[in-house]
């Protein structure tokens, strides 16, 4: 089977090529078949491959397929090599499976769009690039996938390019992630300089021998890679692009900006875990970045009114959890959260897309309402996703993964009570804004007339994802409950087991606190938005609170800050120098010679005697010199 590994990325690529080259001449039906079919086929291949992998794990822990030599010079050589191990397998599964569902959904969602072919071409290209990212066995190929998904994200955010705001959002996404990518590129250079290879298995093998733990270089490498991850995964200093990226169609938000691409940073760090483990500083930074991000983004999600922006901030926040888990060394917990998050967040976005489409592209949640009765299917699926997001205990996938992270935030080797507390606060906030979202959208009275109900192609993916959002957590239970650790067993073939600190309180205490926090969050949300609505109205009168609200609404004003710090100075610099400083220099030279020409041409007045006097004075001058010397 694994000799057909290349087909997994190649199928979507073929889909992309077919659609981009011939898309204009194909009917919508064929376009949908190609677009959905290629990804579905890839998903089927992945599942077969996965089953084979699970049944008969390869002795070296991975399947490898070499396609061709990419470049080779001096001591550097890298090939187009595909490699599947347990970690990539998890990602492969999510990308192709969730990807296929989203493709099915979008075949209906985008049915009226003029650029149907372009949409599926970009989506297929994205899937291909994302697959390359996780299948790459060297960092250069991974960088290819990394930038490739950035491109597709750009293309799809700006899919409705005729609205300038969408283009700005697309550009912003590209610029901000590019900053991270550049840092990552520098990290690659440094890594290559130190180790002489960019092959991932070799790096993982050689790094511990080559670097002493906590040496400055390894810290630098880890931090640079982390910066790359922060850009792609919208973590703290580089998170500003993701809320704006919601300008793209909803399936795009579901696939790229929730389930897959934004977790590339998580994948990168998990992939390079050896490098990170060697550098405690980088681990701490990762954890702190994750904790801060989850808190900051969660706070922003509290006050958003655009349904997709709420989900976007919650995505940032959930990825913050993953980073936190990575930072404390809870590798498998991070990946597990990625796994469940992919289902429920994709579900939420798809459901939100269905709502938005039914309500004539209305994004504002306060103009929705009362949809519980009108769109029961969407309501129930959304509820499943929201429960997972809020981590309702035991009945949602999100609980199992988030509970693990919360536990490890305190107990893992790098954990600390402080991190745990922030994560707990985040959990409360999450539950609160999820409840707010649910209540405002589905309860109350209807404010907008429903246009078109979602068709079957849209509801089936919702149902499948909803089921998964509930049951996906059951494959991994906390130790003290049911001893079922299918997921971590699989992932720990690649990632190290989580080290626990000694001398810890009982795990059950944390679980109860976490569960209670989530429930308390839901309760508070209920109180504010359903039980005692007057409180909010009262708060709206207070200017101080409104200022805080606006500050949070603007995403802690990071955009304004960057605008003042970087964007405006840069634009100013380029504007004043538009006509090129050096041009002035050369024009100055030209001007001087022209002036000199004018000056000397006075002497050329056509008078013969004048010229002769000139000659005479010259002779006298020379003779005088002769006499003087």
């Amino acid at each position, binding site marked *: 089977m694994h000799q057909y590994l290349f087909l997994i990325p190649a199928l979507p690529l073929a889909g992309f090529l077919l659609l981009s080259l011939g898309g204009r001449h194909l009917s919508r039906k064929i376009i949908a078949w190609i677009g959905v079919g290629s990804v579905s086929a890839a998903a089927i291949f992945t599942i077969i491959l996965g089953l084979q992998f699970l049944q008969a794990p390869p002795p070296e822990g991975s399947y490898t397929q070499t396609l061709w030599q990419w470049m080779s010079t001096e001591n550097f050589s890298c090939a187009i090599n595909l490699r599947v191990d347990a970690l990539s397998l998890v990602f492969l599964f999510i990308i192709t499976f969730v990807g296929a569902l989203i493709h099915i959904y979008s075949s209906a969602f985008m049915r009226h769009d003029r650029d149907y072919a372009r949409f599926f071409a970009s989506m297929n290209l994205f899937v291909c690039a994302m697959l390359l990212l996780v299948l790459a066995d060297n960092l250069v190929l991974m960088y290819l996938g990394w930038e490739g998904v950035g491109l597709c994200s750009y293309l799809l955010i700006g899919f409705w390019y005729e609205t300038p705001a969408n283009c700005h959002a697309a550009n912003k996404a590209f610029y901000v992630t590019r900053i991270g990518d550049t840092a990552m590129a520098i990290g690659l250079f440094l890594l290559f300089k130190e180790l002489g290879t960019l092959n991932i298995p070799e790096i993982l093998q050689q790094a511990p021998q080559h670097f002493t733990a906590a040496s400055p270089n390894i810290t630098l490498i880890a931090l640079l890679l982390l910066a790359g991850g922060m850009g792609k995964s919208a973590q703290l200093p580089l998170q500003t692009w993701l809320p704006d990226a919601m300008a793209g169609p909803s399936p795009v938000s579901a696939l790229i900006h929730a389930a897959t691409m934004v977790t590339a940073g998580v994948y990168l760090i998990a992939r390079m875990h050896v490098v990170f483990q060697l550098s405690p500083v980088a681990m701490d930074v990762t954890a702190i970045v994750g904790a801060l991000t989850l808190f900051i983004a969660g706070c922003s999600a509290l006050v958003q009114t655009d349904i997709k922006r709420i989900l976007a901030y919650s995505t940032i926040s959930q990825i913050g959890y993953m980073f936190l888990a990575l930072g404390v060394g809870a590798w498998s917990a991070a990946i597990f959260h990625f796994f469940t998050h992919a289902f429920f967040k994709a579900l939420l976005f798809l459901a939100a897309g269905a709502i938005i489409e039914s309500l004539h592209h209305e994004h504002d949640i306060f103009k929705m309402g009362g949809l519980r009765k009108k769109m029961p299917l969407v309501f129930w699926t959304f509820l499943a996703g929201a429960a997972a997001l809020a981590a309702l205990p035991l009945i949602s996938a999100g609980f199992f993964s988030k509970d693990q992270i919360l536990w490890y935030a305190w107990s893992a080797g790098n954990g600390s009570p402080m991190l745990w507390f922030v994560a707990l606060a985040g959990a409360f906030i999450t539950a609160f804004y999820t409840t707010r979202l649910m209540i405002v959208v589905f309860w109350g009275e209807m404010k907008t007339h429903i246009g078109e109900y979602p068709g079957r192609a849209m509801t089936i993916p919702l149902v499948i994802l909803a089921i998964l959002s509930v049951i996906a957590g059951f494959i991994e239970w906390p130790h003290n409950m049911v001893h079922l650790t299918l997921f971590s067993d699989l992932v720990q073939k690649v990632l190290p087991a989580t080290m626990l600190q000694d001398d810890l309180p009982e795990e059950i205490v944390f679980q109860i606190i976490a569960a209670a926090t989530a429930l308390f969050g839901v309760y508070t949300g209920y109180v504010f938005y359903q039980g005692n609505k007057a409180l909010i109205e009262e708060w709206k009168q207070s200017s101080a609170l409104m200022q805080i609200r606006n500050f949070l609404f603007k995403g802690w004003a990071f955009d304004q800050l960057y605008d003042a710090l970087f964007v405006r100075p840069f634009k100013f610099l380029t504007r004043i120098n538009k006509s090129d400083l050096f041009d002035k220099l050369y024009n100055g030279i030209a001007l001087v010679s022209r002036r000199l020409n004018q000056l000397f*041409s006075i002497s*050329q*007045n*056509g*008078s*013969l*005697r004048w010229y*002769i*006097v000139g000659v*005479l004075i010259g002779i006298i001058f020379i003779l005088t010199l002769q006499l003087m010397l």
Partner: protein
Amino acid sequence: MSFYNSQAVLIVAAILFVLGLIGVLTRKNIIFILISIEVMLNAAGLAFVAAGSRWGQPDGQVMFLFILAMAASEVSVGLALVMQTYHQHKTLDAEKLRALRD
């Protein structure tokens, strides 16, 4: 066999040259300018011949011959030009012929 002060000859040549130069500088009529140029050439030739005599070499005289040839062709071309100028512009005033101006 007779003796001269070699400086004296050259000073005479210099005086003649400068006189020619003054002519060139002060006169406006092209004919006079040409005449003055002849004087200057002649003075130069005198200096050559004097130098030749001083060293007893024929080179000075040879040079005079070349100067002569040059003066002849110069004056013939120059006079042809004067004629044309006069026909076209009806003047011989060098100050009025300023086509060389920038």
